């Protein structure tokens, strides 16, 4: 029997879905980037204190943790990783889609727009 339930994301990684990884690659190709990865970080801000940061960059910074899924490298600064471990990054498309969507088990409170959280 094939299970249809969504697998849990291990707490020691950050997972990006195939759909989200594909979207990142599309943007990188559009911008003519030859080598690239996705910086996934948090910064102080938003209604709940912490905001997600996504940026397509050429390579990692010295202290970044590097995680690879679906042929895409994620670069996560160490201080951010504490707040992101176990997070899934998906992409919601369509007219009513939300774009990149974070499901973060560390978030104790999320603001209405979904871009900001407390941990």
């Amino acid at each position: 029997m094939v299970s249809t339930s969504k697998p849990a994301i291990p707490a020691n990684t950050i997972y990006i879905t195939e759909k989200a990884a594909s979207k990142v690659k599309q943007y990188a190709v559009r911008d003519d980037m030859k080598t690239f990865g996705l910086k996934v970080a948090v910064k102080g801000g938003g209604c709940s204190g912490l905001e997600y940061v996504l940026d397509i960059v050429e390579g990692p910074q010295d202290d970044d943790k590097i995680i690879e899924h679906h042929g895409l490298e994620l670069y996560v600064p160490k201080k951010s990783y504490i707040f992101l471990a176990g997070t899934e990054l998906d992409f919601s498309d369509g007219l009513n889609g939300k774009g990149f969507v974070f499901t973060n088990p560390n978030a104790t409170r999320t603001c209405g727009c979904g871009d900001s959280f407390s941990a």
Partner: protein
Amino acid sequence: MSSSLDNFDAGYDALSTGVAILDRSHMGRVVASGGDALDLINRFSTNETTGLADGDVVVTVLTSEIGRVIELITVVRRSATESILLTGLDAEDTVVEWLDRYNFGEDCDFAVSTATSAQITISGPKATDLGINLPEPGRDITSEIDGVGVEIVAISGPSLASYEVLIDEKSQASKVWDGLVAAGGVPTSEDAFDVLRVELGLSGRSSEISNEANPLEAGLLPYVDFDKGCYMGQEVIARLDTYNKLQRRLVGLLSDSGTALSADSSLKAGDREVGRITSAVTSRSLGRPIAMAYVRNAHTEPGTVLESVNGPVEVVELPFAAAVTPG
């Protein structure tokens, strides 16, 4: 520096009709450096702190995710990469810890300078009689008092309007103090300052402005920018404002019996607690005990009598001067 704490009346008169000076070196000061410092503060406080020019002064409120006051701070922009933050008593470490907690490698640093610097408050309607160069409200200038280079910051609220004289080297403070006294500044005390503040119904640090209140109920509406976008606590504060959801508000209280009232004590209507006294003083202009309190909306109608731990009290509108004619 002498602050003549024994001369309450002279200090009160100077604050209300002349020019008073007060040593506020014990209040917190933090040097914020780095190109991202004001942007970070902007993301964690109620007022707009980006887009300022050098010498601009902005009062803003650091708030928690549930919209409660962390600390009221005055931001003084010295340059694109340096500002000074004025905080309340013993609040500077809290401010630094709060901002550092949310600094994820941005170009900013926050350093407490309270112990090495000094601060003198000038307040009163005749401040210009001192004959020193004073800034416009909301501005900061560099100046010289008795040969000592100082910074003078004009702050229009939320308490009594004041000019804050900032002295980088604490050892120079007594010279500046003596210069201000020689120019006609009358030493006053925190007690005199507090009595006039309560008479005018203005919120005070550590009393009305505390982490148990949100900025709207604490009388800090002028320091909330509803158009600036997201900051921590913004959703809660916007909702309170839009749907008029404040459950309590600040009122004045008069002691019916003339008995002094107790700050930080409860107010009851029957057996039910409906409010809390935040500031209590004996008014000099009214000659009787008065207080400010947070009271639940249903009990704020002027003339309502509530029970305090010191006996019955009558609810009046703030400021007291408009509510009561001195008898």
